[in-house]
């Protein structure tokens, strides 16, 4: 039983690590703001679920698991909201979601 749990948790952790990494590469390499945001926010959520889930399996039924569940819950609430607010603010400020390169109008102004 313990071995099975270990293997599942190992798989979850590795998959989580992979997603996190892919998100990082996407946030760096994607051509414009909205695609970068897509890469970062989606993998943020999946990565958090997988990594924290993997740790939860290791922790077993303790107070730590409840804390991990709370962390996961709050991350699942706040992280997409922050992404939404960010995209919304960028839209209002006039950064257009165009294909290809980002418009160079609003460099840090």
């Amino acid at each position, binding site marked *: 039983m313990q071995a099975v749990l270990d293997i599942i948790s190992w798989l979850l952790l590795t998959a989580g690590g992979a997603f996190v990494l892919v998100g990082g590469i996407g946030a760096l390499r994607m051509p414009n703001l909205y695609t970068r945001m897509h890469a970062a926010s989606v993998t943020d959520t999946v990565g958090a679920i997988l990594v924290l889930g993997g740790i939860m399996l290791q922790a077993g039924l303790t107070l730590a698991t409840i804390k991990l569940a709370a962390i996961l819950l709050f991350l699942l609430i706040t992280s997409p*909201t922050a992404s939404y607010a960010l995209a919304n603010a960028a839209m209002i400020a006039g950064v257009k979601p165009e294909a290809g390169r980002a418009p160079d109008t609003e460099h840090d102004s």
Partner: protein
Amino acid sequence: MTVLFSVFLLTLLVITAIAAVQSRNLFVSVMLLGIFSLLIAANFLLLDAADVALTEAAVGAGISTVLFLGALALTFEREHRPTPHRWLSLAVVFAATLVVLYATFDKPKFGDPGAPVQVHVAPWYIEKTPEVIDVPNIVTAVLASFRGYDTLGEVFVVFTAGIGVLFLLSASHGHAAQRRPDNGDESKIGLRNDLIPRVVGRLLVPFILLFGLYVQFHGDYGPGGGFQAGALIAAAVILFALVEGEERTLEAIPRGALLALMVSGALLYGLVGVAGIFLGGEFLNYSVLADDPIAGQHLGIILIEAGVGLTVTGVLLSIFHAFAARDRF
């Protein structure tokens, strides 16, 4: 392996710091400062300082960004001029860096248990804490009981800084600045009319408050204490102010209440100390507060931490309101 992680994080830390100083856009600097705070908190954790990391988390993640942004909203967003005498300053700084680097070779080895810092008073604290105070968190024991004088001083420094900000920013406005009148355009576009962040923000506020109270009263058993809790609770109220607006926050917690928090926290700390004298001990000796010395210590530590928490909350919120009342950002 942990040392390697630490080295990696420290390298990122240096890059962040250089980028923050080098950027002429002050927003970018402030945002990089936020990243800097996250990195240094992770580093503190790797160096076994859980309490310090929690403090950095509570202060650096929200409050310091909000304060810097508040100041930027009232001043300018960009540096207007390039740095004068740049090469001269760089040369001086480079020379000074070499001197400090040379000095590091005489430092005790990293992690050496025989270094002078480790053998002076720390072993005594670690050995005596279970016996004299009996709380699991040695940091709290040292902070609140063994070195209560230091902490009293720090609380009064925080208090004084808060008073100073109130004096500076509640002065009547100079001729240059006038309070921008509230107009429909601005309030229509702000966060207050953006439903999703508003709902989520309001949902989070009670949880942050609850977590703040947990950190306050669980400080004897795990990482936490008055300083961290004060910063967390202040952060919760600031979040409320961001999503619901200044006026509603001031309706809930008026300025007078914040002043009362500030003063009562510092007074509570002082009074606990004086109570020690009246009960036949020394100033800030909690052992005499109850029949059993250890119960007295526990009581004293809880009261002191409560005082610290009240003052820190009051001061940070007063500072925030002082900046926000100058102009809405």
